[in-house]
C-alpha cells in the first residue's frame, strides 16, 4: 500500500511537528496547531484530502522525529529539520525541498558589549541538544580555536529561560528561531543577534525513502506554494484564476490545463486547494513568521529568486 493510499483511506494526514516553537509549529491556547511548518501540512492535507483540517499533528522531540518517520508513525515530517547528507543517505530519508533557508547564529545581551561571534572565547553557550546546532557549534569554536562552555538544554523554552536568567552568555540556534525567541522577550531591544551565521540550515519537509509518488506529492505541493507566489496566485484570487487565465503556467498549476494532478494520483485541482487553504508561500510566511507577526522575520534568503532570494520552484511544465 502506498503512503498516498494509506492517507486517503485514513482520511487524515499525520504530520510530525515540533513540540512547540512559536511561529513554526505550536498549539495555541485552544490546542489548535499554528505556524509556518503547520501551514505546509495543512496545504498538503488540502491537496491530498481536500480538507486542510484533516491533519493530526504529532509533536516530536528532536530525538524521536526520525524514528517516528521511519516507522510510519507520521506520513511527513515538517519540523524545522536540517537537510544533511547523513540524514538523507544514511538514515534513508528523502528531503523533498527547502521551505526555509536558515543558518545558525548567536544571540547575546547587548550589555555584554560583544559585536562578533569571534569575541566569544570562553563564553557559556546554551544549545538545544540533539540537533545539528550542537555539531556546528563544536566545529565553529574548534576552527576558530576558541573555548566555550556548552549548556545543553532539552527544549527551546528551557533554553530561552536559561539565557534570560543569565545562566549562559550566548544562545545559539537557527537564526529564525533566535528571532522568534527574541520577539517573545519582554525587552527584545536588549538582545542582539550577532552577524555571523555559522552554518547552512536548509529546513524542509521530509518523507521516507522508497515511496517516490508520495515524495513527489509532498515536493510539488511545496513547489506549488512557491510557484504561486512567483506567479501572483494568492488565496484571494485563486478561485478567480481557476476559471482560466491567459498564463499557461498558472493554468497548469491550477489544473485548468495539463492534467498534472492525475499524474501522481490526485485530481487536477490539488494545487488550487493547497493555495486556497493557506495562501501562497509569501502569504503563509507573512501570516506566521513575517515582519507583521510577533516573530518578525524578514524574507532575506527566503525571498523569491526574482527578488534576490533563494526560492526557486522548478517550472510546472
Amino acid at each position, binding site marked *: *500500500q502506498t503512503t498516498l493510499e494509506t492517507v486517503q483511506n485514513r482520511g487524515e494526514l499525520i504530520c510530525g511537528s515540533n*513540540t*512547540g*516553537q*512559536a511561529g513554526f509549529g*505550536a*498549539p495555541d*491556547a*485552544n*490546542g489548535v496547531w499554528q505556524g509556518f511548518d503547520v501551514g505546509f501540512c495543512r496545504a498538503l492535507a488540502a491537496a491530498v484530502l481536500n480538507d486542510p483540517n484533516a491533519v*493530526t*499533528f*504529532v*509533536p*516530536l*522531540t528532536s*530525538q*524521536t522525529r526520525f*524514528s*517516528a518517520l*521511519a*516507522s*510510519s*508513525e507520521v506520513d511527513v515530517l515538517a519540523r524545522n529539520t536540517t537537510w544533511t547528507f547523513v540524514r538523507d543517505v544514511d538514515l534513508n530519508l528523502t528531503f523533498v525541498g527547502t521551505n526555509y533557508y536558515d543558518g545558525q547564529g548567536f544571540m547575546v545581551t547587548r550589555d555584554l558589549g560583544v559585536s562578533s561571534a569571534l569575541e566569544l572565547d570562553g563564553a557559556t553557550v546554551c544549545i538545544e541538544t540533539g540537533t545539528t546546532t550542537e555539531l556546528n557549534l563544536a566545529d565553529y569554536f574548534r576552527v576558530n580555536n576558541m573555548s566555550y562552555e556548552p549548556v545543553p538544554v532539552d*527544549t*527551546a*523554552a*528551557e533554553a*530561552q*529561560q536559561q539565557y*534570560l536568567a543569565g545562566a549562559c552568555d550566548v544562545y545559539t540556534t537557527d537564526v529564525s528561531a533566535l528571532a522568534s525567541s527574541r*520577539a*517573545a*522577550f*519582554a525587552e527584545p531591544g536588549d538582545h542582539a543577534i550577532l552577524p555571523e551565521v555559522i552554518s547552512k540550515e536548509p529546513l524542509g519537509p521530509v518523507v521516507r525513502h522508497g515511496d517516490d509518488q508520495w515524495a513527489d506529492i509532498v515536493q510539488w505541493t511545496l513547489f506549488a506554494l512557491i510557484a504561486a507566489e512567483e506567479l501572483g496566485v494568492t488565496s484571494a484570487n485563486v478561485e478567480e484564476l481557476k476559471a482560466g487565465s491567459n498564463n499557461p503556467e498558472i493554468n497548469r498549476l491550477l489544473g485548468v490545463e495539463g492534467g498534472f494532478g492525475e499524474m501522481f494520483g490526485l485530481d487536477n485541482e490539488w494545487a488550487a486547494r493547497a493555495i486556497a487553504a493557506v495562501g501562497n508561500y509569501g502569504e503563509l510566511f507573512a501570516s506566521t513568521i513575517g515582519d507583521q507577526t*510577533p516573530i518578525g522575520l524578514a524574507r532575506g534568503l527566503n525571498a523569491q529568486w526574482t527578488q534576490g532570494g533563494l526560492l526557486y520552484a522548478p517550472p510546472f511544465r
Partner: protein
Amino acid sequence: MSDTHAQTVAFVRNEMIAPSDPPAREAGAVKWLRENLFSGVLNTFLTVVSLLIVWYALAAIGPWLLNSVWTAGSLAECRAILDGTSGACFSVITDRWHQLLFGFYPPQHYWRPVLALALLFAALAPVLFTALPRKLLLFTAIYPFVAYHLLWGGSVWFPVSVALGFVAGILAYLIVARVSTLIAVFAAILAPVFWWTFAAGAFDQTMSGILPLGLEFVRSDRFGGFLISLIIGISGISLSLPIGILLALGRQSDMVFLKSVCVVVIEFIRGVPLITLLFTASLLLNYFLPPGSAFDLILRVIIMVTLFASAYMAEVIRGGLAALPKGQYEAADALGLNYWKAQRLIIMPQALKISIPGIVNTFIGLFKDTTLVVFIGLLDPIGLSNAIRADTNWNGIYWELFIFIAALFFIFCFGMSRYSMYLERKLKTDHR
C-alpha cells in the same frame, strides 16, 4: 507519714491517697516547652536553628505568596500590576489551569474525564470494601470499557465489541470446561483472539450502521496534563495487577524453566530505568512489531508502563504469598481444589489483601513516574508547563507553574499514602 519498714513489717493503708496534680514545673505549658523544646543544650540549639529556618523560609516566600496576582492576562500585565514589588503571578494558573488538568481536551467535554474518575471510585469500592455486595464487582469488570468510552468516545460499539471478546472467552471456558479444564483454558484464550481478529470489526461496523450510538470522538493528541498522568498511572497499575500476579506465581513455582523466565523478566525490568522503557515505547517498539503496525503513542506508553509496574507488582505480591502459611495450600489440596481454584479462592484473596499497602505504594511511585513521559513528547503537566512558557504571554514564568503542578501531585500522593497507612492499620486489626 507511714514508713513501711522491715522491722515493722505489717502495714495496712486505711485511707487511700487521692491523686494530686504534678508539681508546677512538671505540668502545663512550662513543662511542654521544657520537654519538647528546651530540654538540654542540644535541644535548645536545635529549636533556635529550626525557628531561624522557619523564619527565613517565611520571610523569603511569604511576601511573595501573599502579594500574588490572580487576574492578569499575561506576565507583562502581572509585572505592571506588581509594579516592581515581589509577588507571585498566579494568573497563569487562572488562565491555564484547565490545560494543566485536561490538556487540550475539548472544554465542553470536561465532564467526561471527571465522570470517569468518579466512576473509578465506584468501581474500586467493591474491591476495597468486602462488606459491599459482590454483585458490584460486575461494574468493576465493565468499568475499563466504560472509562474508555467516556474518555475517547467514538462509537459505543467499539468497546462493546472488545468486551464481547472477553465474554466469548469466558463462555468458551465454561462450555469446554465440562469436557476438560485444560482444553477450556486454550479455548478461553483462542475464542477472544478469534473474535477480535475476525468478528469484532464486522460487529462494530454493522452495529454502528444499525444503531449509531456514542459520544463524540476525542483524539489522543488532545489528551494532556494531569489527565494523562492519571490515565497512564491508573491503567498501568490495574493492568499490571494480573500480569504481576502471574509473574509472582511463576517466580514461586517449582517449574525451573518458568521460574527462571519470570526471574529474568522481573529483574530485567527492575534493573533498567523507566525512561529507557519509555524510549523503547516511542523509538523501538516499531522495530519489534510487524512492519506498518504503528499505533497510538499513549497506548504504547501504557503498555510499557504496565510492564514496568508488573515487575514491581510481582515483587509486592510475592511478599504477600510468602506471608501465607503453608497450611493454607495443603488444606486446599486436601479438599481436592486444583491449582488454579486454590489460587483463586484461597491463596490470592488472602495474599492480595496482605499486599494492598504495597500495591498502593507501587501506585504512588508509578504515578509520580508518569512525569517522565515528557521526555517522549507527551504533554503531561510538565510538558504543558513547557508549552505554556513557550507562549508569548507567559514566557518567563516559572515558579507558579511548578508550585501548581507540585501541589497537584502532592495532594494526590499524600492522600494515597495516608489512605494506605489507614488500610494497613485496618488490616492489622482485622479478624486474626
